[in-house]
């Protein structure tokens, strides 16, 4: 029997398993290398496309995009490259996104709370609502535009006019405006907020709910003091996604509030508004010579991109304000 003490001077007996890499290509390993190469390629391709778009926009819009362009209004000839400004569209797009956020966040959070806290994950009702929400997410945005026209503008607005106006009075509510466009966008982005919020609510361990109930908390107190603070980062992520989705959409606001041209900035929810995305569409389709207005077009689209980015950054900033120290590390 050999000694069990290790002898540093004697090498271990040769291992029967060849540890050294085999010469030549092993098919499984080659496939694996190829696959990781493909995934990297796909990732860099997306990055390249993104940079290409951004670079092209900056390059093509550089002659127009400046402080004056951003901060002046436009007169009736918005195709004039010397005087065209974009302030009304920036204001309009910002306003519709903010009003939308005001509606979609409470509605989405309350729905998600119902799904996450008041029903069982697999109950028939919860499944029904979740199915409806998922279907809502799959509806093309132009359909939301038509829905907004039919429901908000014609039905809700029309009914309000009937109640408050009367025959012969000019319609105040029953026409496209900022409020109806924002509400239409809110309906469109509802699934994003609901799904993000519900997921973050379900991720909260039930032991925290039990701890709260065992201290004599009501369900509402538990939601307010434990659930919502814990779910807040997820909720704000939902908000960021909703803002990103809504800012660039044109179809839902076509019939519900966007104006071709307005001489003044909107100053009430019942005003129409000009919009960056819609304006880009107008520039591209309504101009006499597409060549000459191209710089304005690209500068407009660049502005839209930057505005979306800015709105998201604001939301991310709010999210970052939540004290990290109290987040669950797990």
């Amino acid at each position: 029997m050999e000694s069990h003490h290790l002898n540093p001077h004697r090498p271990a007996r040769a291992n029967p398993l060849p540890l050294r890499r085999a010469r030549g290509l092993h098919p499984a390993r080659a496939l694996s290398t190829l696959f990781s190469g493909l995934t990297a390629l796909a990732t860099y391709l997306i990055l390249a496309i993104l940079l290409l778009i951004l670079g092209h926009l900056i390059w093509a819009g550089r002659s127009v995009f400046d402080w004056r362009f951003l901060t002046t209004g436009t007169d009736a000839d918005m195709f004039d490259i010397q005087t065209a400004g974009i302030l009304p569209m920036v204001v309009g797009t910002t306003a519709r996104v903010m009003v939308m956020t005001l509606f979609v966040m409470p509605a989405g959070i309350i729905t998600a709370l119902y799904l996450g806290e008041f029903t069982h994950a697999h109950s028939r009702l919860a499944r029904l609502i979740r199915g409806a929400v998922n279907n809502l997410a799959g509806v093309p945005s132009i359909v939301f535009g038509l829905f907004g026209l039919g429901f908000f503008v014609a039905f809700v607005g029309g009914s309000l006019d009937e109640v408050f106006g009367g025959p012969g009075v000019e319609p105040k509510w029953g026409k496209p405006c900022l409020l109806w466009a924002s509400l239409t966008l809110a309906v469109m982005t509802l699934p994003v907020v609901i799904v993000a919020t519900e997921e973050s609510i379900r991720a909260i361990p039930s032991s925290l709910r039990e701890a709260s109930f065992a201290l004599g908390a009501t369900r509402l107190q538990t939601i307010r003091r434990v659930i919502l603070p814990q779910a807040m980062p997820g909720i704000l992520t939902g908000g960021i996604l909703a803002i990103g989705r809504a800012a660039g959409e044109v179809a839902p606001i076509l019939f519900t509030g966007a104006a071709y041209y307005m001489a003044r900035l909107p100053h009430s929810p019942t005003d129409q508004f000009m919009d960056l995305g819609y304006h880009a569409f107008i520039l591209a389709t309504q101009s006499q010579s597409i060549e000459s207005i191209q710089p304005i077009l690209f500068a407009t689209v660049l502005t839209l991109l930057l505005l979306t980015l800015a709105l998201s950054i604001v939301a991310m900033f709010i999210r970052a304000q939540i004290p990290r120290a109290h987040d669950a590390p797990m």
Partner: protein
Amino acid sequence: METSSPILPQATTSRPDGPTALIQARNVSVRFGTTQALRKVSLDLAERHVTAFIGPSGCGKSTLLRCFNRMNELIDISFTEGTIHLADTEIHHPDVDVIELRKRVGMVFQKSNPFPKSIYENVAYGLRLHGTRDRKILNEIVESSLRSAALWDEVKDRLHESALGLSGGQQQRLCIARAIAIRPQVILMDEPASALDPTATMRIEELVLDLRKDYTIVIVTHNMHQATRISDYTAFFYQGELIEFDATSRIFANPAKKQTEDYVTGRFG
């Protein structure tokens, strides 16, 4: 309630004479869906004493514990029968507010579950729930609760740091501090030390012995030595039934039932 002196259905399920019974459970049965978790259990919990519930997993000891603060009601498919009196009040009576009940019957869970808030806010949670806003009162109760839970010296310099930065044992003592901050009469402990190392377990046990002066404590435990060290009375459960209930010394030294003897001597379970 008809009478304040415990009239017990069976001698074997009775608590021996002595201290006042703060909680009296009679014929308590609990069912989850079609699974019978607890069968006609009757026992008394002595005021300002420690009662241990022992038995193999699934024997119903935690289920009974959760009857005393009506936590089983959070599970939709649970059905509870029988009566439980806390002092003179039947806790299932329609006039009883479950929130008031839970203020008087606190609970500490198996896995420590501090809120992802600061140490201070964890202890102040119950007080804030029930309307205490005065900063001075909050400060005082937070300090006294942390002192009672033998945690004050370790955390007094970092009260406003996250509770999640504490060790497992400290977190569990924080949960005890949180429970006693609202001054309950009863503290229910569901295997409070089962996830802790021996040193942290010992500290929890010392704490339980200390808290016995002011609180009625029920502790579910898998650890028989723990039961002998800290409890005055022990109830042995098996398959949803209360097999034997007596002074801890008798349960371990001279049990009346064969099953109890087999379990406490480690022959099964």
